[in-house]
């Protein structure tokens, strides 16, 4: 443990720089997950009014909500440079419209007094070193898989959320093979800052699996969560001792990006199957193709409920964004849910119109199927099976093709075709009982031979 003591001036400077450093780091991390490219100008001369934006000689415009959240998390406590050196963490997670979440990465800024360098000057050297580490952080945030994910986020697919907390970084919910990297470190006369990131490498999400992994996170979502009366939700955990402050969870804006959509690496297991028609096609290399259409009875069950659910989910999702956006505009209270610069009002109108159109389409479809008695026959059901066996003729009358078809369509068992009545079954059972009772002696002999055989083996 270092026994070196900084002068009061140096200590105050270090404390101030540390707070600036933590807030800037949080800004960099959160802004990199907005889903858009950033551009800031290089300014040869920075004016006094832009001092906050140009700290560490880097042009990074601060988002007020992130600054508020970070300061709340840091609080008035001396987090890093005083014992017990509680780390500051920013967690990035993904949330689907079905409310499934997956933690993607955890950024951690920690301090320890195991390594010191008493020759380093606080006001010049450490300030410049912090600038270098922030630049490394800027580059590193573009290099993790989460960055590409964040560029493809949208309210229909998923959004990226962030969470700040004080305490040891939680990495258990990053999956089995998460990767950990050190971004940079800063030596001071009394200790060392270290910036790390742990990120998920496997991006497959299973809703049930995620629920099991929420081991000590209890969500307390109010009933008016998706209404205009929404306020910031405080998440409580079962392990409050490890956290030095409150949890501030907020979702990042889910702006549509203009880049060409690429294949998403995430496979999300959906709970509901919303497709009505399905077309089964064989994968590459298999010899068979089947096309079929589902039976649609004139008075069959409607398909209204399932599609409505899938429509409602994004609408409530987007309404949450717009309502919270209105809250943000109307209230300057720090307790409001921060950082909801999401859908614009006209975009919300477009979504509403789209949803109405889709609902009308579904209604029209159901009406079509429901009103089959209007002198319209149900669509004919047909099955076309085209068998193309390997090494065989393409003609379906070939022996091999017939054999394959007969194997795939075997006749039903007789017992499933002919079903006896209850009386016949009882009579049959009573006859069988009489036969068994008449042959009791044979059964006893069988049992005794089996016993003798066991004894011989022993």
């Amino acid at each position, binding site marked *: 443990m270092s026994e070196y003591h900084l002068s009061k001036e140096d200590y105050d400077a270090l404390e101030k720089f540390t707070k600036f450093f933590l807030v800037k780091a949080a800004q960099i991390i959160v802004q990199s997950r907005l889903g858009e*490219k950033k551009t*800031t100008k*290089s300014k040869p001369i920075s004016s006094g009014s832009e001092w906050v934006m140009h700290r560490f*000689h880097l042009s990074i415009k601060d988002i007020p909500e992130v600054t508020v959240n970070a300061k709340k998390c840091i609080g008035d406590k001396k987090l890093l440079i005083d014992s017990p050196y509680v780390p500051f963490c920013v967690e990035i997670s993904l949330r689907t419209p079905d409310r499934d979440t997956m933690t993607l990465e955890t950024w951690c800024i920690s301090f320890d007094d195991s390594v010191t360098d008493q020759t380093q000057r606080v006001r010049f050297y450490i300030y410049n070193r912090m600038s270098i580490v922030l630049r490394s952080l800027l580059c590193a945030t573009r290099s993790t898989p989460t960055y590409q994910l964040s560029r493809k986020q949208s309210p229909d697919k998923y959004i990226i959320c962030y969470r700040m907390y004080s305490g040891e970084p939680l990495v258990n919910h990053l999956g089995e093979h998460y990767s950990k990297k050190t971004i940079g470190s800063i030596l001071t006369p009394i200790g060392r800052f270290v910036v790390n990131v742990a990120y998920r490498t496997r991006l497959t999400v299973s809703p049930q699996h995620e629920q099991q992994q929420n081991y000590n996170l209890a969500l307390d979502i109010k009933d008016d969560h998706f209404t205009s009366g929404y306020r910031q939700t405080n998440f409580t955990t079962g392990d409050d001792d490890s956290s030095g402050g409150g949890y501030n969870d907020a979702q990042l804006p889910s702006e549509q990006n203009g880049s060409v959509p690429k294949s998403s690496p995430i496979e999300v297991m959906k709970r509901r199957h919303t497709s009505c028609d399905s077309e089964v096609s064989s994968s590459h290399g298999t010899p068979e193709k089947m096309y079929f259409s589902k039976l649609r009875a004139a008075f069959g069950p409607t398909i209204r409920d399932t599609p409505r659910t899938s429509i409602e989910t994004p609408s409530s999702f987007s309404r949450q964004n717009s309502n919270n956006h209105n809250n943000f505009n109307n209230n300057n209270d720090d307790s409001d849910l921060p950082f909801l610069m999401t859908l614009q009002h006209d975009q919300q109108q477009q979504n509403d119109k789209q949803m109405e159109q889709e609902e009308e389409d579904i209604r029209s479809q159901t009406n079509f199927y429901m009103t089959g008695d209007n002198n319209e026959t149900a669509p004919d059901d047909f099955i076309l099976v085209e068998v193309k066996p390997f090494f065989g003729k393409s003609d379906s009358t070939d022996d091999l093709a017939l054999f394959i078809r007969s194997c795939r369509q075997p006749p039903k068992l007789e017992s499933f075709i002919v079903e006896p009545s209850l009386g016949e079954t009882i009579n049959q059972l009573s006859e069988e009982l009489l036969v068994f009772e008449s042959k009791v002696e044979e059964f006893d002999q069988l049992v005794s031979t089996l016993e003798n055989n066991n004894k011989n083996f022993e």
Partner: protein
Amino acid sequence: AVEGRQIDEVVSCMFHTILFHRCVGKYHTKGEDSYSVGTLGYTDVDCDFIDCTYLHVTSQELQRAVAEKISQFHDALRSSDTARSGQITLEFYQKKKQRWVFSPESVPWEIWTVKIELMQLSNENERQFIREKLTDSLSERIFQITEIINRPDYVPKPSHLSELDLVFDTTFVDIQPYLFTISFSLDGPQNLSVGLAMRRLIKDAFGTSL
């Protein structure tokens, strides 16, 4: 190993990441001992042939200077009949004043070398596979660069404000990078002189290869 069309993006990604760390804001001197430092902006760049985004210092002059050199390397490598690989070097140096009328001596203090091997792919599946592999490899290189830069290694400091141009390139209008130069060479049969060979040996001894 990369395809021809990926050369520019791979090299730009790494060189701009390095230059972003080896650049300071523009110094404005106010008198003999006081000065102010400008701020550095940054710009995200999406690659077209790799699934990667990197950032560079927002400075058209710097972009132009780096792009020109990388483009020359690209053209030389792709137009060569014999060489299928080459290396491009980003070298940071400082000037040391000489006595009398001799021009200042350039002494390298950090050398980054990127070795490129051209490959030709036959189908789209291979191309996609190489693209993904290259993306992962490039991400690893970025972390490697940040790790090396954050080591407590030597970085020159001007002893006085009047000697800024011995350490920094003060010709840029909006930024001030450390003095640097970009050079390249192609692998293959070359006529090496003793002087050239010795120079390479010394450079390799100081250099950091990627």
